């Protein structure tokens, strides 16, 4: 708004500089939602690289049978930390970054409701990340228990396990503060006329996600705290010898864990619901039904947790209940798919990089959804539980679902955020490389799983060799392709072409229609009126 203030003789550019701090202190003290969004996204990318290197260690060891590179203990630490870092350090912060950047602009608010708390919730993350990484250097190394941290294996771990537990507490605190902020912002700071049912779908998905986070995070905090007291303070929550039940841990963990899956994927649905209409030049089909579908997925996510536990020996009624409830989730999810297709139908489609990633998402997420349906069937899951089929399934959902969407979102909003365009050719190359190598890694893992290769093993029988080789080669290709992404983004920020205020012809949310590119540091200090 500097131009406006300028009319009244105030210092030009005042708004583009901040509170007297510069350099690193600017970033440490910032309470601006755009700065904090940027911080989240860079943190996420850093963690994505760290977790990615761990994945490459795993794939390198699995390139051929036998133990070559790491010992089994370290291999377990790699699988554990890869999972924790990717879920809590890379994917979740990425979408919180999107939320920070976009929600205020999309609802016409000047900032998040609690700007100071927003700063804290970001700055907790580097500490949690550091704790996770420091655990490798503790006696006994990082925990080798898998990201699910099942009891009672956790009791056998060294002090690295405690570091991980503290890290999870901090991450949880950060998520809760972020969620409180998002809920308050979306409920209370919408511009006049911006009714709930006029909000961009991205804001809706985040509102629902924040609710899921608030409902499920205390469960995780409780689970890891009980693990901690079982380890050090003689309690027996999960210790059969002391009257506890190891399976109770699994119930608690997955009661958090399944909503967590939707915490990751719902904001991704929101991003896709912004991008597909923009490049179809056509409004989103079935907006209201999309909102209802999102809400139903969220509600169902609380009654399906035990489909992760078909092999623990539940009674037959339990198996059947969780099977039916789980298959039911396919209904709203399918409705979403159809809505996106109907949005494209008879549109005027173009295929810039964000749209390519969005289509890649539709295609691969469908595969992940279908393998999820197979796994939901308790009888069939008995064959596939804890095999590479599960690994393939959740990477189709997490990588092709969440990560591809994050890429799509970054290409989509980068012009708005930085005022500069990325290189479209390189963006497309990045898409095709990611697409091909991703399938090379994970499609073949379906076959490994069907044939019975267990997950989390550092060495494997000879009949699994070929698929593992292909998967490992794909992994290195995928990893290298992401360096191209880094190059594209840095190049765009430093020397990209100027972007238009409404870079995408079909984009229709407030940040495109009401704000210039790059979006000014303070936007919507007076709310716009939405008609």
């Amino acid at each position, binding site marked *: *708004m500097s*131009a*406006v*203030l300028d009319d*009244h003789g*105030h*210092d030009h550019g*005042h*708004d583009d500089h901040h509170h007297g701090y510069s350099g690193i202190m600017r970033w440490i003290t910032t309470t601006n939602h755009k700065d904090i969004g940027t911080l989240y996204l860079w943190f996420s990318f850093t963690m994505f690289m760290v977790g990615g290197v761990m994945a490459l260690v795993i794939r390198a060891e699995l390139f051929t049978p036998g133990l070559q590179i790491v010992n089994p203990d370290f291999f377990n630490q790699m699988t554990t930390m890869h999972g924790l870092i990717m879920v809590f350090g890379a994917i979740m912060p990425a979408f919180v970054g999107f939320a920070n950047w976009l929600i205020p602009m999309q*609802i016409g608010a000047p900032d998040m*409701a*609690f700007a100071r*708390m927003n700063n804290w919730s970001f700055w907790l993350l580097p500490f949690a990340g550091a704790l996770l990484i420091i655990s490798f250097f503790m006696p006994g190394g990082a925990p080798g228990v898998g990201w699910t941290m099942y009891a009672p294996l956790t009791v056998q771990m060294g002090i690295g396990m405690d570091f991980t537990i503290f890290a999870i507490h901090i991450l949880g605190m950060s998520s*809760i503060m972020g969620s*409180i*902020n998002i*809920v*308050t912002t979306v*409920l*209370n*700071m*919408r*511009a*006049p006329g*911006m009714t709930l049912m006029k909000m961009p779908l991205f804001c809706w998905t985040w509102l629902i996600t924040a*609710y899921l986070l*608030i*409902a499920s*995070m*205390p*469960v995780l*905090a*409780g*689970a890891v*705290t*009980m693990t901690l*007291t079982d380890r050090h303070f003689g309690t027996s*929550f999960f210790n059969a010898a002391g009257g*506890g*039940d190891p399976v*109770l841990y699994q*119930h*608690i963990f997955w*009661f958090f864990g399944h909503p967590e899956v939707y915490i990751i994927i719902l904001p991704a649905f929101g991003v896709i619901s912004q991008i597909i209409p923009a490049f179809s030049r056509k409004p989103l089909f079935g907006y209201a039904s999309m909102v209802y579908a999102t809400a139903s997925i969220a509600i169902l996510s*609380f009654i399906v947790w035990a489909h992760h536990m078909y092999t623990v020996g539940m009674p037959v009624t339990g198996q059947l209940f969780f099977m039916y409830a789980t298959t039911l989730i396919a209904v709203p999810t399918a409705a979403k798919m159809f809505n996106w297709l109907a949005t494209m139908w008879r549109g005027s489609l173009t295929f810039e990089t964000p749209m390519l990633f969005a289509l890649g998402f539709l295609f691969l997420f469908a595969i992940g959804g279908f393998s999820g349906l197979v796994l939901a069937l308790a009888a069939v899951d008995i064959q596939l539980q804890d095999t590479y089929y599960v690994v393939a399934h959740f990477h189709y959902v997490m990588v092709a679902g969440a990560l591809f969407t994050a890429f799509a979102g970054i290409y989509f909003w980068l012009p708005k955020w930085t005022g500069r365009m990325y290189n479209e050719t390189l963006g497309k190359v990045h898409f095709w490389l990611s697409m091909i190598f991703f399938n090379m890694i994970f499609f073949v893992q379906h076959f490994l799983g069907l044939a019975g290769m267990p997950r989390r093993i550092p060495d494997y029988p000879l009949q699994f060799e070929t698929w593992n080789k292909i998967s490992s080669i794909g992994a290195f290709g995928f990893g290298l392709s992401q360096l191209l992404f880094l190059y594209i983004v840095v190049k765009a920020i430093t020397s990209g072409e100027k972007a238009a205020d409404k870079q995408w012809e079909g984009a229709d949310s407030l940040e495109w229609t*009401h704000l*210039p590119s790059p979006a000014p540091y303070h936007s919507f*200090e*007076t*709310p*716009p*009126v939405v008609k």
Partner: protein
Amino acid sequence: MKGWIQELPRQEFAFQGRGPGFSLLLKRNCSISPAGLMWAYGAIAAVTLGVAAAFAVLGAWMVLPFAGIEVVALGIAFAMNGRHAADYERIQLAGGRLLVEVCESDSVRRHEFNPARASVMVAGAGHGMRIMLESPGRSLEIGRHLHERARLELAGELNRRLRN
């Protein structure tokens, strides 16, 4: 940017009334009613505490304190945000009196000025700029729910009307 200026929320400058007097209501922008906020809070608190209580019954009582802390934190956040949801300033010129009614959380204060001797002054500049309604010996900040630029406009508009 011109289009942007035209997007100022009309109701904030809805000078009402006929003849020489006017009435102006300045409100914070709040997109949810206090009752709506209570519903939103009640729903999430009930779910969170219900889940935690169920786990406590199963023996995993340590979920409960975390759920409790969180529900309290959310409550404080909503209260902080909601306490000022109904704040407003009403500036009225009627019967030769300038009345300013300031509602802040649960207190309403009325200030009376002599329109002939009152004027609006601008204090400070840029971010943190304020406008004050002044008459000899008295001063009251107004337009706190507005953006700087809207405050300047309000100052100009009020001065013009007071001078008439």
